[in-house]
Each structure stands twice: as structure tokens, then as C-alpha cells.
């Protein structure tokens, strides 16, 4: 064995010493800066712009709703960048956004088409993150899509601001740290709607559920059954129907002689339009069962979709996240801004997406960064007002917004084609709030990519 040092050994030591010296020297200025420990993050904006990704259904059954979301996003970007009349930024309780973009950067956007299909939505979100450098993804009109894209954003390390998604699972068992939802959920619908149903139809009722056979339908049925059964209603049947069935006659005819006196349609969009229209055609609303007038309930309304059912929605109760007829300052500012830009009032999908874009921008401004963990921390527990739903809080434990819920009814004497629903009750937040642990799931840690 030899102790002789080889020239190789010497040069290796020298190389290590040299490298360490260079790293130490290079790091010296940073220890005096507040960015000393700031790790970079996915799609950190480097230039004078920051890119938002708007992932909405541009084709498929929810394309009209997607188009309304996109209109609202464009309006939000204008207002954040200081263009237009400022919309709800004028009424928003947080005043950090100054109309000069976010953190000194002008907001630009890219769009994707979810097609209301999980795989297509994930592909378009992935493209916007990887190719277009989107720092945040937002939008959508389906819970299945929202949950899929939320999972992708968590893996990719960007924030996801959900669009129209109503299933409990989005901020329940499938919640993720990087995902945030402004829209309400089926639990809140059940809690808000049940007392109104009790006041109008009493406690001795037998309900028959027709339920869209996917995550949102199951969630909606579960919540309505939970609250209506608690107040004394019985459930005679709960039948799952395929999404997009078109003709629901074979599911409606068993209702006729089932002994039920209430039909609950846990359907949304085109399915709701078709099942409601056909139920009315089968004379359900003219029937008397158990000595009571038969009635129909549509737990989740969309004004855009309800118009498709024409006169059949008249007098039918449901719930909605927001409605353009609200008279608070925020709603009025948004309706004015949107109506002047496009010539008609915004839908609830437009409202929630506008809010999400503004809330994200505001959180970035308050955090002084676009880093997901910093933005997420700024959103968690954030209390605000002036965005059309009254005092609202982004609950830290599940990233779900808590606010008042609207119970609506199909309007008997509409004054225009947009005047389809009327607000019959504003259910206070305290009545629809639940414990964070109730819906299960774990947020996990933020992922910065």
C-alpha cells in the first residue's frame, strides 16, 4: 500500500476548493438581500407581464356558459390592468390592486378549451402551464373537470382557481392545497334550500330523486336527502340517470304512480332542461298525490340554462351562487360593467370567474409574489366584501369560500328573456356553514413546482 499522493488527488482537492470558493463568493451578496432564501417557482414571471390561463368549455354542451366565463375573465383582466370602468374593483373591500396590473406586471392571458371532458381539460391546462407559462389556471363548468384540473395544478405547482363547480368533493375529499373555490357547494344548497321547502311544502312529503350519474349528481342528491329527511320528508326512490340521456320519459313515468309528491331533479344544464320539460309534459305539476299538489325541485339553477326550459321553470325552487338582480353595490357595478360591454346581464358562471380572477390578483399583490405558497397563504382565511355576495371568507382549512346563499324560484311574470329567476331568500352564511372535517380529504402542502 502506498501513501504517495497522485497528481490526480492533488488536482481533485484543488478543484473542490476552487468550486467551494466560487460558490461562497457568489453567494455573499445574497445573504444581505431579502431574497436570500427565495427558491424559484413554476412559471415565475420574468418580464413585464404575467400570464393567467383561462380554461373554459369553448365547445360541447356548456360552451355558452364557457363563453360567459371568458367574457368575465376578459373584463377582469381589463379592470386589473386599469382599463374600463373598474367594475367590482371599485367596490372590493381590498384596495391593494391599483389598476396597474399585479406586482407591477401587466396581466395577459391564454385560453384553453375544457370541452367539459376531464382529459381534454387536463391537456389544455398542461399546455397552458408548460408551453404558455401560465402562473395560474382558472375556469370550468363541471365538478369532474374541476377535480381533474385541480389535481394537475397541484402536481404542476401552480394555483387553480376553480370556476363553476358545485360538488362537495372539490373542496371535500378531493381538495388540494393549490386549489381554491369561490362557488358554493351542494352541502350549502341543501342547508339553504331545505328551510324554504319546509315553509312552502311542509314536513310531510315524499320525494323521488332523479340524479345525474356522476360526482356532482351524487353529491347533490346526498345533500338534499340529508336536509330534507332531517326535516321529516321521506325518500321513496333515488334513481341514477345517465348524463346526456336526452329522453327521460322512461325515468319519469315510474314517478307517476310511485306515491311520491315531490320530484327532485339533480340534473344540470341540458339534462335539467330536458328532464324538467318532460316532467311537466307528463303532467306531474298538475297532479295531486297524498292530498297535496305535486311539485318539482331543481336544487341548482343556472339562469343561462334555465332559459332553455322556457315556461316550465315558473314557480320551481332552486339555489344559485349569485344573480344579476341583486342590489348590493358590487353586483350593480359588475352588472353595469358587463352589460355595457356585452349588452346582456352576466350569469353566475361569469360572476364567480370574475371574482376568482380578481381574488387571485389581489392575493398576489398582497403577497408581493406569484409563488403558489405565498399566494395561497394570502388567500387562506382572507375576509372580503364588495364582490356581490356580501361578507365572504376563504376558509383556510378547506379553501372553500363561505358566504350567503341565494334561494331562487322560476319567475312567474318575467319582464325580459334574462329575467328568468327571482331571489326568494338570502340564506345567511351562518346557516350554511359546516365543520371543515365534515367532507373529508386533506389539503396537503402547497406545491411551488
Amino acid at each position, binding site marked *: 500500500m502506498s501513501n504517495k499522493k497522485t497528481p490526480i488527488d492533488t488536482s481533485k482537492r484543488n478543484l473542490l476548493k476552487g468550486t467551494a470558493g466560487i460558490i461562497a463568493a457568489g453567494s455573499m451578496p445574497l445573504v444581505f438581500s431579502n431574497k436570500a432564501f427565495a427558491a424559484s417557482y413554476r412559471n415565475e414571471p420574468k418580464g413585464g407581464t404575467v400570464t393567467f390561463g383561462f380554461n373554459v368549455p369553448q365547445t360541447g354542451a356548456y360552451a355558452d356558459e364557457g363563453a360567459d366565463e371568458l367574457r368575465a375573465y376578459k373584463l377582469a383582466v381589463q379592470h386589473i390592468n386599469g382599463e374600463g370602468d373598474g367594475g367590482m374593483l371599485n367596490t372590493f373591500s381590498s384596495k391593494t390592486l391599483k389598476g396597474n396590473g399585479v406586482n407591477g406586471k401587466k396581466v395577459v392571458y391564454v385560453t384553453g378549451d375544457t370541452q367539459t371532458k376531464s382529459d381534454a381539460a387536463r391537456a389544455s391546462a398542461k399546455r397552458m402551464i408548460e408551453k404558455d407559462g401560465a402562473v395560474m389556471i382558472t375556469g370550468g363548468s363541471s365538478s369532474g373537470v374541476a377535480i381533474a384540473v385541480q389535481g394537475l395544478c397541484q402536481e404542476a405547482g401552480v394555483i387553480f382557481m376553480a370556476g363553476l363547480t358545485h360538488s362537495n368533493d372539490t373542496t371535500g375529499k378531493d381538495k388540494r392545497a393549490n386549489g381554491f373555490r369561490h362557488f358554493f357547494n351542494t352541502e350549502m344548497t341543501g342547508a339553504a334550500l331545505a328551510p324554504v321547502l319546509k315553509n312552502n311544502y311542509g314536513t310531510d312529503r315524499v320525494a323521488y330523486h332523479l340524479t345525474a350519474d356522476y360526482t356532482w349528481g351524487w353529491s347533490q342528491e346526498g345533500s338534499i336527502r340529508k336536509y330534507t329527511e332531517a326535516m321529516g320528508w321521506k325518500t321513496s326512490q333515488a334513481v341514477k340517470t345517465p348524463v346526456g340521456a336526452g329522453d327521460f320519459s*322512461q325515468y319519469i313515468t*315510474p314517478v307517476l*304512480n310511485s306515491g311520491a309528491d315531490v320530484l327532485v331533479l339533480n340534473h344540470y344544464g341540458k339534462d335539467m332542461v*330536458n328532464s324538467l320539460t318532460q316532467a311537466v*309534459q307528463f303532467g306531474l305539476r*298538475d*297532479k295531486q298525490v297524498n292530498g297535496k299538489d305535486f311539485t318539482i325541485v331543481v336544487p341548482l339553477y343556472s339562469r343561462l340554462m334555465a*332559459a332553455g326550459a322556457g315556461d316550465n321553470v315558473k314557480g320551481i325552487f332552486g339555489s344559485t351562487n349569485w344573480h344579476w338582480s341583486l342590489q348590493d353595490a358590487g353586483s350593480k357595478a359588475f352588472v353595469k360593467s358587463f352589460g355595457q360591454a356585452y349588452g346582456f346581464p352576466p350569469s353566475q358562471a361569469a360572476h364567480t370567474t370574475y371574482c376568482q380572477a380578481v381574488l387571485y390578483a389581489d392575493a398576489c399583490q398582497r403577497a408581493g409574489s406569484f409563488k403558489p405558497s405565498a399566494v395561497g397563504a394570502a388567500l387562506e382565511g382572507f375576509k372580503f366584501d364588495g364582490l356581490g355576495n356580501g361578507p365572504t371568507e376563504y376558509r383556510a382549512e378547506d379553501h372553500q369560500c363561505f358566504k350567503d346563499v341565494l334561494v331562487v324560484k322560476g319567475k312567474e311574470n318575467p319582464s325580459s328573456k334574462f329575467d328568468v329567476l327571482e331571489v326568494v331568500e338570502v340564506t345567511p352564511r351562518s346557516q350554511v356553514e359546516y365543520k371543515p372535517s365534515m367532507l373529508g380529504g386533506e389539503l396537503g402542502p402547497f406545491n411551488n413546482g
Partner: protein
Amino acid sequence: MDALVLQILNGLDKGAAYALIALGLTLVFGTLGVVNFAHGALFMLGAFCAVSVKALLTLEHVALDPEKLTAWGTPMEIRTPYIESWFGDFGATLIDYSVPVSILLAIPVMLILGIIMERGLIRHFYKRPHADQILVTFGLAIVVQEIVKAQFGANPIPQPAPDIFAGSADIGLLIGFAENAIVYPWWRIIYLIFSAAILGAVFAFLKYTTFGMVVRAGMADRETVGLLGIDIDRRFTIVFGLATVVAGVAGVMYTPILSPDYHMGMDFLVLSFVVVVVGGMGSLGGAVAAGFLLGILQSFASMNEVNSILPGIDQIIIYLIAVVVLLVRPRGLMGRKGVMED
């Protein structure tokens, strides 16, 4: 028992729509040998003839009321349909009957569309493989769909039946059941009668007219009919137009049952193809029989009693039956030897 009767009625109604679309599909296949995946789009176009007629009848005169403002600050619009201003009650009645009135427009429009489609596109694919025909007609269906969506939007557009047919008929009373035991919407009953009339008319046309006889002869042996000096191609073009009209009027009359949207044709196309295959490719009687059979079985499979034993059977029954029929009778229920067999 009343539940069974109701499901039979549902099945007949559903089957009537399948049969009308499948009849056109199999007619085109039997005459021209073309697998037309755009046939569902023709059903949808028929439905949008009804939407267009309603839109025309309800064209409105717009006046601004400066004293009333919208929520966004512009003067409120007061809209009055021209036809009501001009014709009063008659105008209102015409709007109410817009769906049946639409048939008057749908027949010529669909006939012209069918002839243009056959002369302009389909005839170039007569001798091409079926895969090429499927690709080009499927592509055409998507193009038509997107045009309709761009023009009318993606949401369903309600087309109510005339007020007089808006309610339900207590047909249970007619067949000895208790009052209100079997009620069925008037419009669905009308649709069933209408479908039976159309199916009967098409069969009568093909069976009892010289034109129909030549077409049937052409379906059996195109070359020989051609050698007799008969311009069979021209007749087949007319048959294509006829199939287009049948799909179109079926679409018009279906609008009060299913609010039309741009995708409705695709929803029916797949089921109608299964109906054609089960009935036997190119067999007119087979298409009609299979349409009604599958419609009724689909309705029975949706009954709670059946679903509680076999959950989800309602969603696969049609395909299950197709598999069984094709295993037992590979050419379908009434298929002929040599059709789609190289």
C-alpha cells in the same frame, strides 16, 4: 300493470324516433351502398328548421323606452312580434303552432339539402371503401354541427308544442284502468301517430309505385336495372333526398319532446346505427322492427324493478341486445345475404 303499459308507450315513442332515423340510414345504404354518418345531423337540421321558423315568426319590432333603464343603464327594449302586430290573434296562433307549421318549410329545405349533399359530396364516394365514406360523412356531420352551434349557440332552445297539445291524455280510462292511472303527453301520442304515418307512407311509396318498384329492383341488382335503360342513379339521388326529408320531419316533430341543440343528431346517430345493424343492413322492415324493439327494451330496462336486480342495465341494454343478435344472427334480424359482405 299500469307501469308496464307506460313503459311500452315510452318504448314505442322512443322506438318511433329510432325507426325514422334508421329507416333513412338503411334506405341510403341499401340503394347507394353508402354508410352515412351525417344522417343524425340531418335529424338535427330538421329540428333547427323548427327553431328557424319560430325565430322568423317571432321576429320582433324593438322600441326603446327611455323612461325605463336596464340594470346596466341603457334604455329598456319593448319587443313586439311583427306577426302579432300585423295579424293579431291569428299571428299569435301561428306562433303557437310553429312546430307543425315548420314541416312546410322542412320538406323542401331538407329535400334540396339532401340532393345537394348527394350530388356534391356523397356520389364521389360510391366506389370508395366504407371507411372513407364513414370518415367523410362523419366529418360533414361535425362541420354541420359547428355551423349550427355558431349560429344558434350551444344551449337547448325550447320549442313548445301548441297549447292545445301541452297537457296529458288519460288513456288509462280508454283501456279500463282507473282515472289518472295511465296519463301520457298528448304530443308524444301525436309523435307516435305521425311516425307510423310516415313509415307507412314510405313503405307504400316503395311498394305500390312504379318509382318505388324500380328503386327496390335497383337495390336488389343495380347493374341489371341499369342495363334495362333506367337511370337508376337519378332515382337513387331522389331516394337520398327522401331519406333526408324523413330525418328532417322526424327532427321537426321531436322538438317539443327534446329541446333541440346542435349535438342532438350525434346522440341519436349511434343508437340508430345499432338499430340498423340489429335490424340487418339494408333491410327497411328490419330497421323499423329493431327500432321499436330496442326502444321498448330500453324502456323496460329503466324500470326500478329491473334496475334493482341488474343495476345499470338501462345504459347497456341496447348494446347487449346487439351483441346477442349478431352472435345468433350475424346478418341482423332481417338482413340479406351479401350486404356488406365482400
